[in-house]
C-alpha cells in the first residue's frame, strides 16, 4: 500500500533521525520514555468537595487544570493575570466549584477570575456562570465603548466576563417581556459570530473556534496555544455517544467535522501519545489518539446509518438493525441510549430531519462583539 516515493521519504526520515542520534540532537522528549502523566501530579482534592482538579500542563508560570465533578468538565487556566475558565459546571455545583477554584488557585495568582468562556449553552457548561462570575472581576477596559464601561459604572466591580458564540446568548436569554430560561447574570455578554475569536491572557494566545451545527448550533472549542491544551466542550465526551441536540441545531456531520478539526489541531508527542491534551466536555483527560478512536466510532456509525437510508430503511428498521451495537456496552447510557443516538443520526441525515428551533430573532445582534 505504500508507494515507492513514500518509502523513500520514510528512509529519508530514518537517515535524518540516525544523524540526529549521532550528533546528540535528540530532544529530551525523545530521549526517554516518561511514566504515566499523572504520576507526579496527583489530583488536587479539597476535603468534602466532589470537585477535584487535575494538572494537565502549562507554559512558564501559566498552568492548566481540568476540574472534574462539577457536572461537566471545567478547564482552568491560571497565571499572573488571574484565572480563566472554560465552562462552569452545573448550577447546583456552583458553590462547591467556586470553593475548589479558590482552593486550587491560592498561591498561584493574586488576581481574580477574569474570564469565563462557554463552549455551548447547556446547563452543564453554563450553570455556574452566575455564581462564579460574580466571584470574579472582569477586565472592564476591554469591553468598553468610547471609554465608557458597558457593564455598569466606572470603578464599580464587574463580574468576570463571559464569552461565547452569539447563539449561546440567544438560547439563554429571551426577548424583552418574556421569561428567559436563565437569569441575566448568567448570560455571556461578550459574544462572537466569526469562525474564530482570539484573545491573549496569562501570556498565551487563546483561540476560541466555532464548531458549526455539531452538539448544538453554538459550539466552541478553546485552544491554549502555549500550554498545548484544547478544551473540547460538548463536541467531545468520553462518557457517552455524542449527544446531538437536534432541537438546538446539532447534526451528526457537524460533530464529525468538529472531531476532525480537533484532530487537525492536536499533535502527539511520541508514539501517538501525549503532546496536545484534550479536555472533553465530560469524562477523562485525553490526547489525540483518544479523539481518533472516538471519531472513528462516530464516523462508522454514521456510515452504517447512511447506508441503511440509501437502502430505503425506515427509522424503525434502522433502530432494529442496531448500527451502534459494537459501541453500546461502552457508550450507551440511560439518559442517552443507543436508540436515541441512532435516531438523531438518522434524522440529521434525512431530508425530513427534525426542525431546528430557530434562534430568537429578537435577540439577533444582542451582546457585544469584539
Amino acid at each position, binding site marked *: 500500500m505504500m508507494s515507492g516515493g513514500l518509502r523513500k521519504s520514510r528512509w529519508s526520515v530514518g537517515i535524518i533521525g540516525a544523524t540526529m542520534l549521532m550528533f546528540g540532537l*535528540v530532544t529530551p522528549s525523545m530521549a526517554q520514555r516518561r511514566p504515566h502523566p499523572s504520576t507526579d501530579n496527583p*489530583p488536587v482534592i479539597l476535603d468534602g468537595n466532589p470537585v*477535584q482538579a487535575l494538572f494537565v500542563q502549562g507554559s512558564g508560570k501559566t498552568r492548566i487544570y481540568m476540574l472534574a465533578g462539577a457536572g461537566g468538565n471545567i478547564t482552568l487556566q491560571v497565571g499572573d493575570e488571574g484565572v480563566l475558565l472554560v465552562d462552569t459546571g452545573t448550577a447546583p455545583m456552583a458553590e462547591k466549584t467556586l470553593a475548589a477554584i479558590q482552593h486550587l488557585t491560592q498561591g498561584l495568582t493574586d488576581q481574580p477570575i477574569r474570564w469565563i468562556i462557554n463552549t455551548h449553552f447547556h446547563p452543564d457548561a453554563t450553570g455556574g456562570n452566575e455564581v462564579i462570575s460574580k466571584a470574579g472581576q472582569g477586565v472592564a477596559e476591554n469591553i468598553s465603548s468610547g471609554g465608557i464601561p458597558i457593564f455598569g459604572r466606572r470603578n464599580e466591580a464587574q463580574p468576570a466576563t463571559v464569552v461565547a458564540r452569539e447563539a449561546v446568548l440567544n438560547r439563554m436569554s429571551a426577548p424583552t417581556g418574556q421569561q428567559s430560561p436563565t437569569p441575566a447574570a448568567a448570560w455571556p455578554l461578550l459574544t462572537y459570530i466569526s469562525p474564530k475569536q482570539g484573545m491573549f491572557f496569562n501570556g498565551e494566545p487563546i483561540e476560541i473556534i466555532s464548531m458549526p451545527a455539531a452538539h448544538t448550533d453554538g459550539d466552541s472549542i478553546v485552544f491554549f496555544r502555549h500550554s498545548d491544551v484544547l478544551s473540547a466542550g460538548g463536541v467531545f465526551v468520553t462518557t457517552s455517544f455524542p449527544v446531538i441536540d437536534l432541537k438546538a441545531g446539532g447534526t451528526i456531520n457537524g460533530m464529525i467535522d468538529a472531531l476532525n478539526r480537533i484532530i487537525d489541531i492536536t499533535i502527539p508527542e511520541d508514539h*501517538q501519545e501525549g503532546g496536545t491534551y484534550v479536555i472533553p466536555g465530560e469524562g477523562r483527560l485525553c490526547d489525540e489518539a*483518544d479523539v481518533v478512536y472516538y471519531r472513528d466510532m462516530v*464516523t462508522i456509525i454514521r456510515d452504517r446509518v447512511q447506508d441503511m437510508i440509501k437502502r430505503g430503511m425506515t427509522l424503525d428498521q434502522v433502530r432494529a438493525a442496531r448500527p451502534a451495537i459494537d*459501541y453500546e*456496552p461502552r457508550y450507551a447510557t440511560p439518559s442517552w441510549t443507543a436508540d436515541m443516538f441512532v435516531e438523531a443520526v438518522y434524522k440529521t441525515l434525512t431530508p425530513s430531519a427534525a426542525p431546528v428551533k430557530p434562534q430568537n430573532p429578537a435577540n439577533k445582534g444582542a451582546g457585544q462583539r469584539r
Partner: protein
Amino acid sequence: MCKTHSIPAVVVLGAAMLAMPSTSAFAQVDLTGTYRILWHWDITKRNPGTLPGDYTGLPLNDAARVRADSWMPSLWTLPEYQCVPHPSTYAERGFSGANLKLWTQVDPRTQQVVAQHVLGTVGEPERFIWMDGRPHPPEYAAHTWLGFSTGKWEGNTLVVETTHLKESYLERVGPQQSDRTVVIDNWTRHGDYLNEITIIYDPVYLTEPVVHSSAWVLDKRIEFLRHPCAPQETTVEVVRPPGVVPHMLPGKNEELVKYAITYGLPFEATRGYAEAMYPEYMEKLKTLKPMTKESKAP
C-alpha cells in the same frame, strides 16, 4: 492449535517451568536482566499475526464480534495510526520479537524499591510498575498505551495491576479491548527463565477474562535500540477525501471466512465464543461442518 490458555493450562505450564533445572541466576525475586522472548506457542498470532476472522481463543461478546468484523487493515494507512504502538497487553508478546530489559528503581536515600521498569524492544515501551504503594489515578486521569501499573510481591511472584489503558487491540485482526480494561500480570522468575501470566478483564468486550502466558530466557546479548516514532514519521499513504475512516459495513466483510477455510474449521469455531476455548468444545467441533473453498460466508 493451542491459542489463549485456560487457567488450568497455565497452571500446568507454570508447574512445568518450576521443574526446570535452573542454572546461573537463582535470585527468585530479582528480575533484573535482559531477556530473549521464547516463541514456543501461539506463534501464528504473535508473529507475524493471524488471518482475518481468527478470533479463536478469545471470549468475545456480540458487540466485540461486530466491531472486529468491521475492522479493515486499511485503517492503519491513516496518518494518525502510523505511530500507534502495541498496548502493554500485546507489546510483551507480540510482533517482531518482544525482548525485555528489567531493572529496579530505588530511592537512593532509603534503598527502598520505588518501581520495577520493563522495557520492550518493539517501539520501546517502558512500563513503570510502581512498588511504593501509591494509589492508581482517578478515572478522569489520562489513559496511555501502557496504562498505570502498581505491583506487589506475593511469594516469588510479582503481581501487577494495570489500569488507565487506552482503547486498543487484543489481536491485530480486529478484536479490540476497551479503555475500561484492567490487567493482572503475574511475573515469576525460574532460574534463567522469566514467565508472565496475563489476565485481561474487559467488561465492555469480553464475556470472561482472557488468560495468556509468555516466557523469556536470560540473554545478555540483547541490544535495545532507539525506536522513536513522532508525527513527522507519518505519511499519507492513501489519498482519501477528508474524514474517511476505512471500515467494512455489516455483512460485507468477505475476508472473515479466510481463516476457517485455510484451516478447515467450522466458521462458528473461529468466532470467539468462550466455549471454544475449552477442551470440551472438541466434541462439539466434531458435529460442525468445516468450511471449504466452496463454502459461502454465513
